[in-house]
């Protein structure tokens, strides 16, 4: 494996050194590039990448690619058009990336939010749960009904981590808080997101977090009252209310670093999982709808995560059924977090399965 990697990299750098052609960078998006959230943010990072490198980079992009055989074809066609590095920006592309990467050892593949990798196949993700810790703190302090709502997309570890992190941090500042989770089974469906937000409001929820990609939850909150957060994008157009703050995905620095590595011939496979400290997870400006003490509390959580003095999943923490998970002072390891498939104590409802 090491030999083939060395050969592959040797071949790639050789080709680059010889002709000085631009590095061809491919991006595959699961949604439209104007979804206002996840895909748009990857696309904007791609545009920034292009601005950063200018003529040294040629972008090829494909939007709204379903997670299935179509993705495999798109990835293959990108590799065939001479892409040097391809970013597949949705978790459902994982198996397709794995199979295409095996067929094109000279092309580098980068897969977002998955767990597989290979000699020419890296994965990268962001520790969104760090952002959820900050949002959860704000939500717990801002709710007057003691009910916060959560629009969940698919029951995968990333989403479950977000729910757990939100809840335990809301609970820390507000022991009476309850969380209502609605599973939507979609990443992007503005109509469904709006309906679910409305349903939560009617159940007495007054702060809603979303793990879906559109701005529809904030638009609904704006009409019906209540607070929310920007998700994936800052969504500052809804500040100061209903948008209190936001979790911003900032992929641009990572993309620049990885493409630079391809140019230098120093690209190596990796499993990257970065958080607030590395800038991959951005926290949007606190809005003036938040009282000073809420801002201060949120800032404190954020600072302690950044300086490494605090991990959002620190014991004592029990699973939903009351069985112990982390002992006093124990910190969750990345492996356990990567596969998290259970709610923590206090979260009501069931994970659909």
């Amino acid at each position: 494996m090491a030999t083939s990697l060395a050969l592959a990299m040797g071949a790639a750098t050789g080709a680059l050194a010889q002709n000085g052609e631009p590095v061809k960078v491919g991006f595959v998006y699961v949604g439209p590039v104007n979804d206002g959230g996840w895909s748009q943010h990857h696309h904007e990072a791609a545009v920034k990448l292009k601005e950063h490198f200018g003529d040294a980079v040629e972008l090829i992009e494909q939007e709204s690619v379903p997670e299935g055989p179509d993705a495999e074809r798109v990835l293959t066609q990108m590799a065939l058009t001479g892409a040097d590095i391809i970013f597949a920006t949705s978790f459902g592309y994982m198996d397709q990336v794995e199979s295409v990467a095996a067929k094109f050892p000279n092309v580098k593949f980068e897969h977002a939010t998955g767990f597989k990798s290979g000699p020419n196949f890296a994965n990268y993700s962001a520790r969104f749960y760090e952002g959820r810790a900050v949002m959860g703190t704000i939500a717990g302090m801002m709710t007057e009904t003691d009910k916060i709502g959560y629009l969940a997309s698919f029951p995968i570890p990333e989403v479950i981590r977000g729910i757990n992190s939100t809840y335990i941090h809301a609970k820390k500042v507000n022991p009476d808080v309850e969380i209502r989770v609605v599973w939507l089974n979609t990443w992007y469906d503005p109509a469904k997101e709006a309906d679910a937000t409305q349903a939560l409001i009617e159940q007495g929820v007054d702060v809603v977090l979303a793990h879906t990609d559109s701005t529809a939850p904030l638009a609904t909150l704006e009409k019906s009252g209540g607070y929310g957060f920007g998700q994936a994008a800052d969504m500052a157009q809804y500040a100061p209310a209903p948008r209190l703050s936001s979790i911003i995905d900032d992929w641009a620095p990572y993309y620049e670093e990885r493409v630079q590595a391809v140019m230098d011939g120093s690209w190596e496979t990796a499993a990257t999982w970065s958080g607030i400290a590395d800038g991959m997870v951005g926290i949007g400006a606190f809005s003036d709808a938040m009282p000073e003490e809420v801002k201060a509390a949120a800032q404190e959580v954020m600072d302690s995560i950044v300086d490494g003095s605090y991990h959002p999943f620190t014991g004592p923490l029990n699973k939903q059924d009351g069985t112990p998970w982390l002992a006093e002072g124990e910190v969750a390891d990345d492996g356990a977090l990567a596969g998290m498939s259970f709610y923590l104590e206090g979260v009501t409802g069931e994970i659909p399965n």
Partner: protein
Amino acid sequence: MIRLERRPAPSKSWTYLAPLLAVAATMIAGAIMFALLGKDPVLAIKTIFWDPVFSPQFGSYSRPQLLIKAGPLILIAIGLSLGFRAGIWNIGAEGQYIMGALAGAGLALALYPMELPVLLPLMVLAGALGGWAWAMIPGLLRTMFNTNEILVSLLLVYVAEQILSAAAVGFLRNPEGGGFPGSRNLQSYPSAHNAEIIANTGIHWGVVAALIAVIAAYVLLQRHILGFHIKLAGEAPRAAKLAGVNPARLILFCMGVSGALAGMAGLFEVAGPAGKISIDFGAGYGFTAIIVAFLGRLHPVGILLAGLLMALTYIGGELAQLMLSLPAAAIQAFQGMLLFFLLAFDVFSHYRLRIATGRAA
């Protein structure tokens, strides 16, 4: 003034001319749209229609992909066309496709990891049964309670999608998948894998089944009394009644066949190119097949050609996105134009254009 006059019988020449004109008009209108988007229109049309087949760079990869994409479209469209000819409107092939895939993949996953030489044929059977059963719901409701099969079959698509996502995150989820949705990959389960019959040709059993379906439908319509009844029921319902055609039996036959074929298409897809049950496994083949059926004039050979053409616009459309940075929406609009122009030109097979001068009509 210009008016349309109904022809006594549909014009034969227009029936065959309309699809060709529609393709030509789509190319022209599409070229104008691409030019307005600031792209070279000739290059765009060439990238969509020529490169997937003939480009030295992509051709060897795209040609097999055309068959992979066209296979399920043709298989489903053949089934639908029988009903459409008889005036029986199964709009829910997408749901039957999903249920067929679930039934067949479910069987394989239940037996995993047992290697069994007859597993794939059994899965095909299960897939056909799954699709058939799902189509029987609107079929039986229609014959017993006279409900509208268009609505029932369409709404059952949404039910099937819910069952699919429940399967992907629940009862068919891969226990070794790290908590991610999606079943085990059937491509790595040799007995269940619908592999390519000849490597790098794209020809898997689903493509073979589609070709068999084309021939069988042709024979049925040309040579068999049932085919005659289907055509008669669509063209002259009263005559069909007099000729002793049993409408209930015809409905159940057409719904059943179209459901079974859609179910088989789903099975071949899940056991082959897709590999696994995932939340968005249903990629719209069942709906696109409706366009293919009409584009092919509900004729088996026409459907074969239309399926290949539709696949070409998909693969070429993706290439155009990659190579020319065309937005995905422009490609969808382009595909939409094809159906639009076909329907527009179809008017002329039923109507004659009359230009009357002077007198009021």
